């Protein structure tokens, strides 16, 4: 898009080893290389347990890197950094706080000006379609609404990068489709660099500029596929011939694996 050759997130030869409880070293990730350009929406697709969530946590600085390196905007990742917004598989709401106060958590931690943060929080709640719910508590909302609030919270401190770890994995299929379209709309409005982990091929194709295909454990990036489908996309994008062709191609990756399922 921009044509600049320096990727925003530069992942080079990253490995991750875990020591299992019986003391055996397990490779979760091996020699993973991936470049994410600024303002790009990239999805990481792979079977369960391939280490894609681990990679996301490493980008966020929450997980140590066994070997290799991750740079964000030329700075080596050595720990968490405040220009990243994180969305987990579950909403991770604090049940004793109202939705508004949950969205304000990053503002509190970063000691932002609270009056302005409050205005921004209301704008973000409007963006994710939760205008009337600022003063409700999380347990009064549905799972999909809580996850919208989690997205608003991740955008609160206006991070450059949004990392999403199977954000709609816990939702039912219908809500999930609606949330995918919502996320497209939100992304169009905010234009963050997004890395989203999923095991849904359709979700990946609908949302992203690029799809990084992970191998089963130990995971590495097998291939990065461009998704040359025009934006703005909509529910109708799923019937686009390019979409169908790419979906077939992606499915091929996972069906070829003996014993490795691709999920849904």
């Amino acid at each position, binding site marked *: 898009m921009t044509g600049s050759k320096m990727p925003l997130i530069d992942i080079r030869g990253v490995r991750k080893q875990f020591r299992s409880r019986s003391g055996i070293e397990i490779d979760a990730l091996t020699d993973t290389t991936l470049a994410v350009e600024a303002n790009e929406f990239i999805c990481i697709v792979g079977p369960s347990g391939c280490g894609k969530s681990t990679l996301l946590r490493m980008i966020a600085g929450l997980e140590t890197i066994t070997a290799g390196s991750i740079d964000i905007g030329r700075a080596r990742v050595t720990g968490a950094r405040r220009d990243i917004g994180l969305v987990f598989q579950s909403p*991770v709401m604090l*049940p004793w706080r109202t939705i508004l106060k949950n969205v304000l958590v990053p503002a509190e931690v970063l000691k932002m000006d609270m009056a302005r943060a409050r205005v921004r929080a209301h704008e973000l709640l409007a963006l994710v379609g939760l205008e009337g719910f600022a003063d409700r508590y999380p347990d009064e909302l549905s799972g999909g609404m809580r996850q919208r609030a989690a997205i608003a919270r991740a955008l609160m401190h206006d991070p450059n990068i949004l990392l999403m770890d199977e954000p709609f994995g816990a939702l039912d299929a219908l809500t999930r489709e609606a949330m995918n379209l919502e996320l497209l709309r939100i992304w169009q409005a905010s234009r963050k660099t997004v890395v989203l982990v999923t095991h849904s091929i359709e979700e990946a194709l609908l949302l992203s500029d690029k799809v990084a295909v992970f191998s089963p454990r130990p995971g590495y990036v097998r291939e990065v596929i461009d998704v040359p489908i025009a934006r703005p996309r909509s529910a109708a994008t799923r019937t686009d011939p390019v979409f169908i062709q790419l979906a077939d191609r992606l499915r091929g990756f996972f069906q070829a694996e003996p014993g490795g399922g691709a999920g849904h």
Partner: protein
Amino acid sequence: MSSKIPMPIRRYLPPAIGGAVLLIVWESLPRIFDISTLLLPPPSAVAASMWHLFDRGLLVGNFLVTLVEALGGFVIGSILGVFFAFLVTRSELIERMLLPYLIGLQALPKVALAPLIVVWIGIGIESKIAIAAVISFFPVLINAIVGFSTVEAEKIDLMRSLVASGWQQFRIVIFPNSLPFIFAGLNVGIVLSITGALVGEFIGADRGLGNLLLQLNYNMDISGMFAVLVVLALLGIILYALVRFLHIRLVFWAKPDNLRAGNN
């Protein structure tokens, strides 16, 4: 529950009937089996004794003394319990220095310390507060330690991803998250604090319901002792209700089901 009987009657009639039956049985037992009313005074005699004690100005003052001892000790013991739990869970060094001894002390019956405390501090109200504090300290400590260590990993990840300080993590997530656990400890501690105050008064005091109970015991005034027991029960109910009230108010997001059922 589709009865036409008004709510207050439906709610309070069964316990009222149960209490009345109990009183009638108790009242008639000594007469039927020819038990000396000196040994098992009927409710009417207990009520008379209570009025008599009240009239002599012995009930209200002693009630307030024991209330202040139990409540004061409970507040001090609880604050110390939460504080030590904070220390122990914040620093591994402090944990390894203190925890073995705290757990060892926990195994000691705390009332055994009461004679020592009375010798050290004297027969005044202060020694009873100290005993009540020691005895209510441990359940709060243990539950607060469990509460501070039982936090969903993703909530901590959320804070870490924002580069929150240890204190911010504690204030925003860990402490509120531990309140249901702390209140489990407080519910136990408030009852124990009355025991502590009472034991202290047994050992050496010139005031308080325990002191009054002993004096009546020396005089073989058994119906008077029953009257004091009734007042002690009242004291227990008041203090327990106080903690329950705070529990429902402060931990509204994790109400125990039995609390919720009574409130609609």
